[in-house]
């Protein structure tokens, strides 16, 4: 009897209405996100007006400026412009390091929570989830407050006699790193937790029967099995870290720019160069899409295996 019932996947009770049901989603996301992104691509090829604003004239100037350095007066033979590539490199490096740190702290946490008995497990999970829902701005501001030269961390370390003078953390790359790590840590814990929860401990027992130590089991059995969770968590940390604006702006000062700050300055700051900002945003989007594409490919390949 049960076999005759259609499975959820091809349930079609609402098939005749599906176009109408999907229409608001198509219209809203299509019109207010997909179309704007395409328009942004167009914008990156427009010409900047002298005092800001754009002229609807095709120009490669923005990309030229991004990749090539023609000297202060613009008449030297073009060299590769390392500044913006450098900002991307620094952003990628910062985001990568944040991902790694989140993984180092997040994996043990996720494992620990997932191996608790069901009653306490949901409490632990709840505790990790709450900070994720607290406003990112407020969390970043809290971190700024904490690590100022005269902030609680320095005060504490000086009171304990660890330091004689305040250790400057604010406005450094370290502060940005800390901010990213702190901002996105829950993103790492949750997917790994979900993967570990589904992990079949019979595998661990089998390994133990074959005299594998716990750490060998962890490395050779557990990690390969929960890898999809690790990869998902890494992407959830890496992608928003790459385009982060609040952490570099509030914790890094204007000297430790990341891509997000560079883009923001073109639109909201004094630079006022929309085509260039659109070009930088386009480069960022491309990098992210490539990362997501590689991820999707690895998922389908893993699925096929």
């Amino acid at each position, binding site marked *: 009897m049960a076999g005759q019932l259609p499975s959820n996947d091809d349930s079609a009770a609402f098939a005749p209405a599906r176009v109408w*049901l999907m229409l608001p989603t198509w219209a809203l996301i299509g019109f207010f996100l997909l179309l704007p992104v395409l328009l942004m691509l167009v914008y990156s090829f427009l010409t900047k007006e002298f005092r800001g604003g754009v002229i609807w004239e095709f120009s490669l100037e923005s990309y030229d400026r991004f990749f090539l350095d023609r000297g202060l007066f613009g008449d030297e033979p073009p060299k590769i412009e390392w500044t913006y590539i450098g900002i991307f490199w620094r952003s990628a490096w910062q985001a990568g390091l944040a991902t790694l740190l989140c993984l180092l702290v997040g994996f043990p946490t996720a494992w620990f929570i997932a191996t608790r008995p069901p009653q306490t497990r949901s409490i632990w999970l709840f505790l990790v989830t709450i900070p994720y829902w607290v406003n990112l701005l407020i969390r970043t501001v809290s971190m700024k407050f904490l690590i100022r030269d005269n902030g609680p961390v320095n005060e504490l370390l000086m009171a304990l006699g660890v330091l004689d003078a305040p250790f400057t953390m604010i406005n450094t790359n370290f502060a940005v790193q800390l901010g990213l790590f702190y901002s996105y840590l829950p993103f790492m814990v949750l997917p790994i937790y979900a993967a570990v929860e589904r992990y079949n401990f019979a595998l661990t027992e089998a390994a133990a029967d074959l005299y594998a130590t716990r750490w060998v089991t962890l490395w050779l059995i557990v990690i390969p099995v929960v890898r999809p969770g690790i990869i998902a968590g890494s992407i959830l940390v890496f992608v928003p870290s790459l385009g982060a604006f609040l952490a570099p702006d509030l914790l890094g000062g204007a000297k430790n720019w990341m891509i997000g700050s560079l883009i923001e300055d073109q639109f909201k700051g004094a630079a006022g160069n929309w085509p260039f900002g659109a070009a930088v*945003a386009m480069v960022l989007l491309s990098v992210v899409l490539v990362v997501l594409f590689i991820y999707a490919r690895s998922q389908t390949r893993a699925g096929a295996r």
Partner: protein
Amino acid sequence: MSRLRNYPGFLGMTIFCLVLLYAPLIIVMIYSFNESASITRWGGFSLVWYEDVFFGAESAKFKSAAWNSLVIAVCAATSATVIATLAALAMLRGGSFRGKSASFALINLPLMVPEIVTAVATLIFFSTIGFQRGLLTILLAHIVFCIPFAYLPIAARLQGIEAHFEQAAMDLYASRWQAFRLVLMPLMMPGIIAGFLLAFIISLDDFIITNFVKGAGIETLPTAIFGAVKQGIKPNIMAISTLMLLVSVVFVTASYFVSKLGNQNR
């Protein structure tokens, strides 16, 4: 068995993780009760900064910002929930159709595009079509990025409801609308509420996109806080932060218990 599951140091790492997540928030909470106007020195316990938030010089600004945030979050979350519920019906109960995977990608597009890119693209779009920036532009942008957040719990819930519920109803000559309203929707309710709460918090929290698309003279709570923080962290900011923090905690706790209740009822 438990020996195999436990690794030395993992408990320590978990505690380290929680301390790290909570310490900054708790310290800001404590300092919001500091009597002193200096954020560095402790001047005794006092509610003076909470009084300042509600009745002080900047209270009008923060009140209107809070009102804007609330109106936008309620409208955006409601619209996104309705839209996501319809989309979930089409995706999970609409059979297979051409463009289904493209539709799925479209729903998730706001999650894949970095927030700053969404912000820039939306700004360019509104500016090009000559749409005056104001509350409405914020609302539209918020609805769009709230859709996937509302969709996730709703779709997850609907996936768990077997199709013979609405089929039985329709066999008994219920119209499609009746089948949805009388049978499916009550079953989906925990997912819909969870989706609404998620979308509500996401909208309430958003800074980057709002900052780009807001119009002249319009602030939401996060943009007002950001503007104030640029000039230095003041104790009244810590009081507002503590209040917002409590709102978030209340909402997450509510959504946690709603989904727990929903699971028990099944």
